[in-house]
């Protein structure tokens, strides 16, 4: 059961200091005119409150882009354990929390990825409410309200935060600044409900989610895949930015002495041509169309087996990160659903492109 509390924004500094004393503190910071990134911060002023989506999702904290798993030297093989320091991850929005939930399921499934789980365990996650922009469609994916994956969740009520503490670790982390939290009043509760109602209405992007799985299956041979495939650069930008893309490559790095080396795992992308190639130069997905279609299906239809859930959380990252301006999942779904007029007035994808780059 969660515990509800109220935190005045004027007291946030104390909260911040307390959390910071627990370990490394990460929050979204601005890195360019349009982009944000979760970075370690020193002062409260560095937090980019306006950040909706960071370039890379929080998965990078538990599943780093590149990680040495095993080393060998002579006859000896040794596991390289993750270097763990307690970390606080602040400002994670509902879509990303849902994303973490999916990552958890995959990495927990046997045989479990111990490094991921360990990093996950050594982290305190503070969720934060958000108002959607024109790319957000978590509502359509059913991930717009966080249900798990966080220790504490903050809802922004103007001059105060409505604080939901979800886990024992969350409670523990507040111990040293318990005095700044008050219990919630009826008005606070009303404001809270108000906020989420307003938010629910704020979505301008999205689609009718019913039958999504069926649509993806039925439209496997729809010609729009070919159109998209022609524009696709196979650059793979859409996958690392996805909160639930977890594919990787494992490579050996040998040392000059010939006697030692390491095995490194690095994020990979199903959009690359060699991804599904096997011996005899047989490639199961030789063209950009094949790969793009596969990826869309994996996101919107999801696993056939063994998990059976969709893996898109509606964060809009792939849409804003596609240099070709084609990765508009919402638009694709609408087209597949037959709403061909939707955003297609400017006929050529160039118009689409422009609207995204703006």
């Amino acid at each position: 059961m969660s515990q509800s509390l109220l935190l005045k924004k004027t007291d946030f500094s104390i909260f911040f200091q307390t959390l910071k004393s627990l370990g490394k503190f990460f929050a979204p910071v601005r890195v360019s005119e349009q982009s944000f990134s979760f970075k370690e911060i020193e002062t409260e002023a560095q937090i980019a409150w306006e950040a909706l989506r960071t370039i890379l999702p929080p998965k990078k904290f538990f599943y780093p882009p590149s990680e040495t798993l095993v080393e060998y030297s002579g006859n000896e093989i040794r596991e390289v354990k993750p270097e763990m320091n307690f970390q606080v991850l602040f400002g994670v929005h509902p879509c990303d929390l849902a994303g973490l939930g999916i990552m958890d399921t995959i990495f927990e499934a046997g045989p479990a990825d111990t490094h991921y789980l360990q990093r996950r365990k050594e982290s305190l996650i503070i969720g934060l409410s958000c108002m959607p922009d024109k790319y957000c469609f978590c509502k359509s994916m059913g991930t717009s309200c966080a249900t798990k994956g966080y220790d504490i969740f903050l809802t922004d009520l103007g001059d105060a935060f409505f604080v939901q503490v979800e886990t024992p670790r969350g409670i523990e982390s507040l111990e040293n600044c318990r005095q700044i939290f008050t219990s919630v009043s009826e008005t606070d509760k009303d404001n809270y409900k108000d906020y989420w109602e307003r938010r629910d209405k704020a979505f301008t992007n999205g689609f009718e989610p019913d039958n999504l799985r069926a649509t993806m299956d039925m439209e496997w041979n729809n010609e729009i895949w070919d159109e998209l495939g022609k524009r696709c650069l196979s650059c793979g930008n859409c996958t690392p930015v996805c909160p639930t893309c977890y594919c990787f490559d494992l490579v050996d790095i040998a040392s000059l002495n010939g006697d030692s080396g390491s095995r490194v795992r690095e994020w990979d992308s199903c959009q690359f041509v060699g991804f599904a190639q096997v011996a005899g130069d047989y490639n199961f997905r030789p063209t950009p169309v094949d790969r793009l279609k596969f990826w869309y299906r994996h996101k919107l239809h999801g696993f056939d087996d063994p998990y059976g859930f969709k893996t898109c959380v509606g964060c809009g990252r792939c849409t804003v990160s596609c240099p070709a301006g084609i990765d508009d999942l919402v638009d694709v779904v609408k087209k597949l659903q037959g709403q061909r007029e939707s955003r297609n007035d400017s006929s050529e994808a160039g118009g689409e492109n422009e609207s995204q780059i703006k």
Partner: protein
Amino acid sequence: MRKDATPLPCIAVESLTGCAGELLVILENLDKLLPFVRVSSFPFAQSKNDDGPVDIAFVEGSVSQPHDLEKLRNIRAKSRWLVAVGNCAVWGCVQGGACAKCKVTDMLEAVYGKSSEIQVLEAKPLDAYVPVDVKLSGCPINTTQFLSVTASILKDHLPYITHKPVCLECKLRENACILIEKNLPCLGPVTAAGCGALCPSMGAACYGCWGPCQSPQMDAMATILTEKGYDAMEVINRLKTFGAPDHLFERMSSETGREA
């Protein structure tokens, strides 16, 4: 595993026509290599060079004159592993790119006159003439990649060299995409990784110095850049600067009727 009594493997570091960049990189890493190899030939760095057989020959530069070709054939004949290092040796680099747009013999004639004895060849990568065992591109090659590739070859193993696009490394470094945000003509999507997405990490457009990635989507790249306002010919010029071979543009030219 190498027994102590066996002699160190021999390497040769040779150059054809290029900027000497790979020679510099190898020279600068020589202290790391020296415990494990004997340098039997490295004319850029030492005067005492022998011509005997070597285990590994690192060859920089493109084949741009008959003298280069003769030298390359000799190197091929004397080495177990022929490693093409640098964009020049792997793709032909800027001089290769230029040969795609004007004839080298015209240039020669214009400079030295019709009767010139100087001989030139259209700049080509090594594998246009001899079998190449390993191709390590880069302009210049990346030190980390060079060392791990050398480590593999020293064990007589085929090295791992990534051919994924620069965008991957760019995203792993969490850069804001400058093709999207600054509308600069970043060639990361069609360029092979290896540099660690150096240019985008410094806020500049990748200009393709590593040469093409595996199966680059040149036509999609051209479409996207022309939509951003770069004229078609300029785009092709950019894409071909660092030696991307013509056959990668076949679809583009057949579909648009453009001269690629």
